[in-house]
């Protein structure tokens, strides 16, 4: 393999850092600017502002966790911007944001002096900048994790915490046909999605919670049953044509949808794949859509409740809550009752993947529902 000039540069800088034993330290050091690149273009930092762009909403939420001290139980931020570990120093709408450490932060001043966030950077550019040391932190699409690692990028991966699911849209003819729903669900080859599309950076999902959360995910089947799907589909008198939508701009969603279409057709199911424009039409012209749902909590009851709330409207699920202190058994039963109707078909669990620069220290992968832990991060080779 022939390295390009910037790859040599990255290798040399990593080697120099590792060789410089005298520069290593364990106790955190103050100072420095963390350079961050994100793909989203954030137009407003108002946490109450609505956004139809999921990437923008997620980025705004991450920034919010740096600016605000606390969250309300409903997930909104409490207090005023700047009460958190950082406050806004410069803000170029949709392009660039500079945050500086809040000297009076209740939990102690962050180790970093400031954070520079550059917006609208494509995944390819983020990866390249990580390789040449032009940035210290960037999220990497899960399907790119292996490649990033092979190219020498320091990669940090969370537990699976984002569910990709196929959700039938309540009221649509195909969605109201239980046999059609079950046939499509049975035809899906989750292993192929994980192995080929996600490059093994994910897990097949049969339930609505990952195994680490409630400990019962193994009870849900994730295997494909093309023969069963074929039989079920053949039993439908007038076989409907199913239209599967995915968010336009979500390349991973598109790849997964197209893979589903391939295995569906193998089972004789007529399935078309279409992008869903943003904002989504008020009267959907698709029967099912792919949704990506990040876990909002590590706790199984809270995580399931938030998934359920998100799915009530689109899938027409019953909004039955789980009691406080619900047991693992009750949570499993609720999961089972949701997925057994095939209105919601869990597909895969995705981790969050982060690319880190060589000088980033004390990085801990955020758990589900947590933001970037930049208040605890510090930089090697920065003066105090």
């Amino acid at each position, binding site marked *: 393999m022939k390295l390009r000039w910037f790859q040599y540069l990255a290798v040399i800088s990593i080697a120099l850092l590792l060789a410089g034993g005298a520069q*290593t330290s*364990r106790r*955190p050091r103050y100072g420095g600017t963390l350079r961050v690149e994100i793909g989203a273009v954030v137009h407003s930092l108002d946490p109450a502002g609505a956004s139809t762009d999921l990437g923008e909403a997620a980025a705004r939420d991450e920034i919010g966790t740096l600016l605000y001290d606390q969250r309300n139980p409903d997930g909104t931020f409490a207090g005023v911007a700047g009460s958190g570990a950082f406050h806004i120093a410069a803000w170029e709408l949709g392009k660039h944001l500079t945050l500086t450490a809040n000297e009076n932060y209740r939990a102690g001043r962050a180790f970093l002096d400031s954070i520079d966030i550059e917006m609208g950077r494509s995944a390819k550019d983020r990866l390249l900048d990580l390789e040449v040391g032009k940035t210290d932190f960037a999220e990497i699409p899960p399907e790119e994790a292996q490649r990033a690692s092979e190219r020498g990028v320091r990669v940090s991966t969370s537990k699976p915490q984002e569910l990709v699911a196929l959700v039938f849209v309540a009221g649509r003819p195909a969605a109201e046909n239980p046999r059609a729903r079950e046939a499509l669900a049975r035809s899906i080859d989750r292993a192929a999605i994980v192995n080929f599309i996600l490059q093994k950076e994910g897990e097949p999902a049969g339930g609505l919670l990952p195994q680490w959360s409630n*400990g019962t995910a193994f*009870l849900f089947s994730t295997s494909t049953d093309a023969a069963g799907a074929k039989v079920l589909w053949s039993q439908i008198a007038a076989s409907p044509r199913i239209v599967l939508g995915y968010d336009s701009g979500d390349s991973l969603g598109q790849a997964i949808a197209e893979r589903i279409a391939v295995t569906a057709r193998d089972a004789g199911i007529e399935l078309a794949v279409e992008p869903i424009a943003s904002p989504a039409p008020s009267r959907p012209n698709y029967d099912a859509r792919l949704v990506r749902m990040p876990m909002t909590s590590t706790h199984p009851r809270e995580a399931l409740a938030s998934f359920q709330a998100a799915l009530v409207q689109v899938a027409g699920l019953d909004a039955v809550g789980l009691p406080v202190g619900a*047991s693992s*058994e009750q949570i499993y039963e609720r999961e089972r009752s949701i997925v057994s109707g095939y209105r919601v078909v869990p597909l895969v669990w995705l981790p969050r993947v982060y690319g880190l620069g060589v000088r980033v220290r004390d*990085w801990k992968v955020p758990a589900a529902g947590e933001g970037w832990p930049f208040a605890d991060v510090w930089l090697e080779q920065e003066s105090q």
Partner: protein
Amino acid sequence: MRPPRRILPSIVRSILAVSLFAFAASATVAQTPGELPHAWSEAVYTLAEKIAAALGSSHSFVLEVNEVSTVGAIDPASIRKTLEDDIALRGARFVASGADAQVQVTISQNLAGFVLVAEIRRQDGQQVAVVPVASTDELPPQPGPEPGIQRKIIWQQAVPILDFVQVPADSRRTLWYFLEPDRLVAYEFDDGAQVLRDAQPVSRRYTSRDMRGHLVAADAMHVSAFLAGMRCDASWNPSLSVECRENAGQQWPMGTVSWTSSPARNYFQGSITFSNDLQAKFPPFFSSASPSPETTGLSSSRRIVAGLDGQTELFVGSAEPASNFDGWGSDLVSIASGCGSAWQVLVTGSGDWTEKDQIQLYEIRDRGAVAIGEPVELTGPILALWAGEDGKSARVISRNLESGLYEASMVSVSCSN
């Protein structure tokens, strides 16, 4: 002031912590079939009840036990044996084949800990039962003493510890003081058993994300805490009283000298004040060590400083460093091990707080440092390393990355090794 209170239930936990090594030897994970730890036994009992109820009119069953947990916490054969017996007591009969029902039990793990999951399949349907296994107070096995350096864990807790001291009150009673970010906690042990506990808040002028604190014991009944711009004097007689005031000069006594702290940060400013009020100036540092003239015969003008830039430098009576040592962590202490007359220091490892740490013994010979023996490995980062009151040991605060608990331990050097 709060009166001292007797806390019988927590004595169990404290004794567990203090006598960790006794437990560590027995806290192995392997059991012979039929011998289950209490929490597992309770969970199996509950699961057997649920399975028996689910079997209903089915009188015979086949049982399979497997595990999806990545941690081999328990022997599935033990679970199976106990479960068979417990279900049999409730009237159902285990058979090898031709049963009315199939029971598949899986040892799984969730956010809270281990769970036992049973899938009961009968001809007329399927049922799932999930029973959590209560977390136990049993502590994980700890590594044994390492050659050269010996580490003894004496306390574990979920709340961060900044420093601790142990002071004997008389031949039977010992007092332990633990400094936490918001309070000072005192424990009294009589003949090894905890009899009293009290805690009082300490005030802070500043908050740091890497808060440091230091305890100095005048005697068993009087300790002073230094943290976050404050000095808190505490007395125990037999309840704990604490008075805090601003530490105007930010001086922290360290044996015969004092260091000037940067109270809103995690380091010291670099000036070291001697008992005769003379001051020496060094670069700002995380920690510093000087030889004991009594044991080494060396002048106290020799000093090692672990600087903020990751450089650890040796100063010998000059403002310019005589040498520097590579690969050292940010905390170090001198230790008078009694093994030879050389100046010896204990040094933490490099890396960051997401990684395991180590303590290495070095001898400072002339202007160089020689590693002595093998380092002692810890299960997480060392957050504080302070010289023991006797100079022959060191107090270590670390965080166990597996359990998340903060551990207080004493480190000493064994000559025989």
